[in-house]
């Protein structure tokens, strides 16, 4: 038996509206990450740190040779850390809502299948 909210959504087309809100939001989130990563590196200052020793003055070349044994990646500061946690939380919230809506769609599609709705359409 459908819940009151589910019945209301089926009637008003709310499901489609929410999918239209969440799906672009999910795509935009991923696209933003993509866009952020293909833009130029953070600053000119940091860019200099990856110059080859040949391009740098001798004193700096020696500095570059000293490399840590291991680079452990992760958020650089509290702002980035918070942003990432918020992003993961938002991602899961969007996933939960989309799963709920998709489950309603599955129920509707299965109901139509039971009614042999598609069989008439195939003809």
């Amino acid at each position, binding site marked *: 038996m459908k819940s009151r909210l589910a019945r209301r959504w089926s009637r008003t087309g709310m499901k489609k509206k929410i999918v239209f809100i969440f799906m672009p939001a999910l795509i935009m989130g991923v696209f933003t990450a993509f866009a952020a990563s293909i833009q130029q*590196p953070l600053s000119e200052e*940091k860019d200099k740190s*990856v110059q080859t020793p040949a391009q740098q003055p001798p004193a700096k070349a020696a500095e570059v040779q000293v490399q840590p044994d291991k*680079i452990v990646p*992760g958020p650089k500061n509290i702002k980035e850390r918070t942003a990432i946690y918020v992003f993961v939380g938002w991602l899961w919230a969007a996933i939960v809502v*989309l*799963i709920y809506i998709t489950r309603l769609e599955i129920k509707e*599609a299965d109901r139509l299948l039971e009614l042999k709705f598609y069989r008439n359409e195939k003809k």
Partner: protein
Amino acid sequence: MGRSLSAWFEDRLGFSAVMGFLRKKTVPLNKHTIWSYTGSAILLFFGIQVVTGIMLAFYYRPTLEEANKSVARIMTDVPLGWIIRSVHFWSASAMIVTVFIHLFSSWMIKSYRKPRELTWMTGVLLLVASLFFGFTGYLLPWDDLSLSATKVGTDIPRSIPIVGEWVTKFLRGGDDVTGDTLSRFFSFHICILPLFLLLLLAIHIYLIQKQGISIPLGVEAGKEKLKELPFWPNFVYREIIVWLVLFGVLITAAVFLPPSLGKVADLMAPAPKGIKPEWYFLFLFQTLKLFPGKIFFINGDTIAVFLIVAAVVLFFFLPFLDNKPDKMKGKVITWLAWAAIAYAVAMSIWSLLT
């Protein structure tokens, strides 16, 4: 306006024929249907690999001097670069896990029965291509561990009589692992293997559309009633749920467990202690370690490599070996599948612990 636009595209592209095909396509509904989701999961992870791989290629430089530095730059300077690399890393592992699950589930339920032999064979080639993807990608960060693991990995074919030496030289681009190996592996990783994989995927998907998804033995023998689910929209909606969950798990793993980067590889340095390949090669690595230097007068490694190649060939031609799946022979081959899984897991754990 919207309707006339869709009619314009319909006249030129004929999408309604595709939709008509998808509406007629059905998926058998039984206790094994869950394994059907692994096929689309592979496609999801492959798509993520392609997107993140392109993003990494914007910054990666496949040269001896720049490879490690450029990966370090991706991880430290490029905005969200470490997440992109982490997603690429985790989706590679997830893809290989799902390819293994997909193949072994097909083995268990004997989906390779006539007329689906070629579907199985393209699937095995897809597994080999995925493993080679992982192997070539492992060297690209050019740190001490990846260099040593590649030296060990490319040395293995040397044990094969006659062609072994040539295979090793072909993989390395010379006698030893050098900058040439790096650029060669990069070409394999971003050009040759993706083209090969896309071609195989296209053939594999075409064969699935042509032959349909296999039905269980019990249904085929008429012992059970066949239940079916329309692919569109009933099955696709279910797949969307699986995709959403997998996508969420992947991003979460990438954020909280990003892979680190070791010190830049030194070609003259001795191999560090405890070199191990990626997890999906551990069972092969441990198998090779088990063999002694000499068995009678033959090199132990040669025998090990010969046995591994023989096992892969038998795995490839499995549909022809398992030609009576409902008889005793078929049951023995199913037990062999369980034995192979148990062996791979046990060997991998052993290798991790030692």
